[in-house]
């Protein structure tokens, strides 16, 4: 921050802005000050729109202690002049801190893969990316879980293969179940809930009566005991839990298909093909995701670009990005119509945006700048500055299209 500007320079700048002579501006300022003074004298407050409000506040008589002598004294009632800046001024002054929002410790989305990470955005746009990250987080969060044995097959697939085998042979498949990886769900975060019941099933096994565990320990190195009732029971519990979860998943997926696309895919859904859930989920995703990284939403009543950016992108200041993608639909960035469809970008779940995404945000700010420039708004240059703060190289590309003074402002700010 620079030093204080002198009154002389200030008057010069105002006269330059208003195309008036310096003498006129000086007289105007004097007149304004006297009006403010008389306004405070008569009314108690003077408001200047977009800037702030001067107020005269009466401080009551009170007792105080003289700091020098330590004697008690009476401070008479008197007026205090206060200035309360209005929101535009406060926001303008705070521009350099705009990117900082209050942070709640332990609630950052990167640290803990909470269920709402996947639940909040069911329309997995660039799904692969996020899935792998969630997978990494999941495996990192539970290092004690064994590595997948059948790496290629999904949990549901593995379950069905084993279930069929068991039904055919009529005997338990304990060894398979023991070696079966619980976190196969890492392949699909939507299935990650299967992890939980599976583990509870395992823990239920641990909490069995001591005589059973003793029996197990006695068996020692002898590996498979098909007649062992404890093993049988544990396998059965797992099978049942897994079956219930899978059926639930299948039902949900089928329901989605009914709701989203009224297709002929219904009859196929009943057959117990183990790979069924994956294509269904993908189909559902593709219903609302136009192409990779974009999503179409219907605008409701009272929604704003600012709010959409906060909800979908996690940062309100990315709203020009949405405006940029919908520049054919939206004429005025301050007004969006309820009932229209808007394209919303789905950024990857990273700490920061990628270069291409930043470029789009900056392009959005330049679009907003151009719009404001058409409206002859004086503050349009700030949007140019914002574009530069997101992607400085873009300012070099648009030198021909923007105002020189605005460009200088954007670069030197």
């Amino acid at each position, binding site marked *: 921050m620079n030093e204080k500007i002198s009154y002389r320079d200030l008057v010069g700048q105002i006269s330059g802005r208003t195309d008036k002579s310096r003498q006129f501006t000086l007289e*105007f300022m*004097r007149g*304004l000050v006297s009006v403010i003074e008389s306004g405070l004298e008569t*009314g108690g407050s003077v408001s200047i729109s977009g800037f702030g409000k001067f107020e005269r506040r009466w401080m009551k008589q009170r007792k105080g202690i003289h700091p020098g002598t330590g004697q008690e004294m009476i401070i008479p009632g008197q007026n205090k*002049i206060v200035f309360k800046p209005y929101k535009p001024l406060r926001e303008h002054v705070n521009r350099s801190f705009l990117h900082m929002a209050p942070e*709640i410790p332990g609630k950052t989305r990167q640290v803990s893969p909470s269920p709402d990470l996947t639940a909040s955005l069911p329309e997995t746009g660039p799904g692969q990316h996020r899935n792998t990250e969630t997978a990494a987080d999941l495996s990192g969060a539970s290092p004690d879980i064994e590595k997948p044995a059948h790496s290629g097959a999904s949990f549901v697939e593995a379950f069905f293969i084993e279930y069929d085998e068991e039904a055919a042979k009529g005997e338990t498949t304990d060894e398979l179940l023991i070696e079966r990886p619980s976190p196969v769900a890492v392949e699909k975060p939507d299935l990650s809930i299967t992890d939980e019941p599976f583990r509870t099933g395992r823990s239920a096994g641990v909490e069995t009566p001591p005589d059973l565990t003793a029996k197990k320990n006695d068996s020692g190195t002898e590996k498979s005991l098909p007649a062992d009732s404890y093993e049988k029971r544990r396998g059965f519990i797992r099978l049942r839990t897994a079956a219930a979860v899978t059926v639930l998943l299948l039902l949900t997926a089928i329901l989605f298909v009914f709701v989203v696309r009224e297709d002929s895919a219904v009859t196929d859904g009943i057959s117990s093909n183990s790979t069924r859930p994956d294509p269904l989920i993908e189909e559902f995703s593709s219903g609302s995701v136009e192409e990779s990284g974009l999503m179409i939403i219907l605008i409701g009543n009272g929604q704003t670009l600012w709010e959409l950016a906060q909800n979908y992108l996690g940062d309100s200041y990315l709203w020009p990005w949405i405006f940029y993608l919908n520049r054919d639909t939206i004429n005025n960035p301050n007004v969006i119509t309820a009932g229209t469809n808007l394209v919303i970008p789905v950024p990857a779940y990273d700490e920061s945006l990628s270069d291409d995404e930043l470029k789009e945000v900056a392009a959005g700010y330049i679009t907003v700048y151009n719009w404001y420039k058409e409206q002859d708004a004086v503050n349009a240059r700030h949007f140019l500055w914002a574009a530069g703060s997101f992607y400085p190289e873009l300012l070099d590309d648009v030198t021909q299209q923007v105002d020189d003074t605005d460009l200088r402002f954007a670069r030197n700010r």
Partner: protein
Amino acid sequence: MTHTELINRLSDELDLTKTESHRLVKEMAIEFAAELGINSGFTIPRLGTFKVATKAGRKMYSPHYKTYIDIPPKKAVEFSPASVLKEHLKFLRPENE
């Protein structure tokens, strides 16, 4: 005194049209805001000094989240009235007393 009253008084005293005085006040306010955004402040004779102060970030207990949250630093506009103005209005009793 509302903004409209201010404009009316100003246009009466300086013999300007209301549109013109409105434009001038608006441009002046924009210039003030821009200056406060770039520089640390300015003084207007007989009115007072505007300053921008940086308030350090701190931790505060949030009753909603039941935990301490980080409040980022921010800037605040501070105004200290000119002594002429202060003395002139110092012992003016409020209307309702």
